[in-house]
């Protein structure tokens, strides 16, 4: 896990925003919304890994498990 993941998430967000705008201009609103959902799921997967790691560390340090 590294600091670059922050830039990755921000990059995914910016790219998704651009794609959303372009698709909206082309008049394909439904595809634009699906792309937003997809990007959000990708971001969630990145964050969930880190949250799992955090909870594991807290368990091992504070709760003796």
């Amino acid at each position, binding site marked *: *896990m590294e600091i670059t993941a*922050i830039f990755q*998430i921000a990059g995914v*967000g910016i790219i998704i925003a651009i794609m959303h705008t372009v698709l909206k201009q082309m008049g394909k609103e439904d595809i634009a919304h699906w792309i937003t959902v997809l990007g*959000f799921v990708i971001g969630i997967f990145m964050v969930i890994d880190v949250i799992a790691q955090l909870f594991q560390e*807290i368990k091992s*340090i504070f709760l003796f498990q």
Partner: protein
Amino acid sequence: MEIIQVVGIGLIAALLVILVREQKPQFAFLITVFTGVFLFLLVIGQIGAVINVINELATRSGIPDVYLKTILKIIGIAYVAEFGAQMVRDAGQESIASKIEFAGKIFILVMAIPIINVIIETLLSLLPLGSS
């Protein structure tokens, strides 16, 4: 000089959040969560070292193991509850955040019940009217 790293990461994350929030608020929230977790993971090693020293001191001074474990558990619960509540509050759900804090307080109280019991029993054994 890890503090410079921490401050730098915080500044960069804040900038990115401002940049992304206008277009896609969901990603801004993800960045916030990630940064919070990352900063904590940076310092958790030091916390572990400190707790090891405290553990050793406690075993050397003969304090029963249960007390230290309870206190550490309480610290852990307090941290997790605070973390969750702040994240939810960032997302704009003030009421859920206050419920998380409430649940944390209740769990801490439950953890502290054995210690309170011991204190009350000690007090009762000290008082002469307890035996009559």
